């Protein structure tokens, strides 16, 4: 019975700690998502035109649709949208939460074990 309780506790604690593991890994790997995998999928600029035309677009009149590579203008038009944001700043907060959770789990496990061991000794079991 007690062993069952102890095993269940150990399992729960391990699950919590394993859950926090990937969070740390995510945080560490965050700086590298610059080569956007999402960028190529944003290519369909032509299908995007009609929907934008209805918007209060400020510049469509000056941005001629005939975009020949003229002197001084953009010579190579990049595809897709620029990936100018690596959003892992809240990850620091999540890291803190994960650390707190891990510490709480370890404390709970340790406390439970101490409790059970002391009680077993007291009862002589």
């Amino acid at each position: 019975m007690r062993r069952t309780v102890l095993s269940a506790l150990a399992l729960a604690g391990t699950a919590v700690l394993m859950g926090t593991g990937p969070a740390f890994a995510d945080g560490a790997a965050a700086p590298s998502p610059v080569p956007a995998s999402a960028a190529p999928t944003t290519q369909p600029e032509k299908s995007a035109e009609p929907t934008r035309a209805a918007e209060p677009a400020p510049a469509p009149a000056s941005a001629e649709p005939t975009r020949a590579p003229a002197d001084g203008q953009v010579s190579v038009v990049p595809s897709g949208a620029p990936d100018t944001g690596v959003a892992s700043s809240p990850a620091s907060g999540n890291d803190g939460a994960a650390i707190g959770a891990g510490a709480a789990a370890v404390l709970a496990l340790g406390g439970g074990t101490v409790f059970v061991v002391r009680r077993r000794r007291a009862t002589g079991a």
Partner: protein
Amino acid sequence: MSSFSRRAVTAGALASLLTACAGHGTTPPRPRTTASPVPADRGRSLVRSAPVRLLIPAIGVDTPVIRLGLASDGTVQVPPVTAHDRAGWYRHSPTPGEAGPSVLLGHVTVGPYGDGVFRHLARLHRGERITARLENGTAAEFAVTAVRTVPRTDFPADDVYGDVDRPELRLITCGGARTGDGYADNVIVFAALSGAKSPTPGER
């Protein structure tokens, strides 16, 4: 006693689980869309000279400018993710002050390093000043004509990279809701040349 200890331990485990779940789902407020077409003054063009510094006093930007090209997948390169974030000029676009859309990019956030150089780009308003200092010592002055927030899946390439008959500026960053480790939208600032400054000794 035994039931008490069991309850205490269970409560501890539950508390830790709740703590682990807390803190997720925090998304920044969606930047407003300020699209206001403005016919800015048609300034004369400047000679070609690469930008070396960008200043936007209204949002506290004063950054060196690096040169960017194309990535292997055909997208535009972006500045490296570093603690000292900088803006970058797309070198296949005109230099600031030349006729055409000069394109500069910067990060809104740089992952573990926090805010990027264009963190507050969406706060710009029509008429606010942008200065690009050039390699030859001159400075091109621009005034904001519009600020747009658009979905990244619907990037207005023609509006950004299309030909224009006067010197203009495009400042691009990310914005909107966070999606995994990126953002759903792009924030694009459109600006037009409003003046030029001749070189000032020691001012670069």
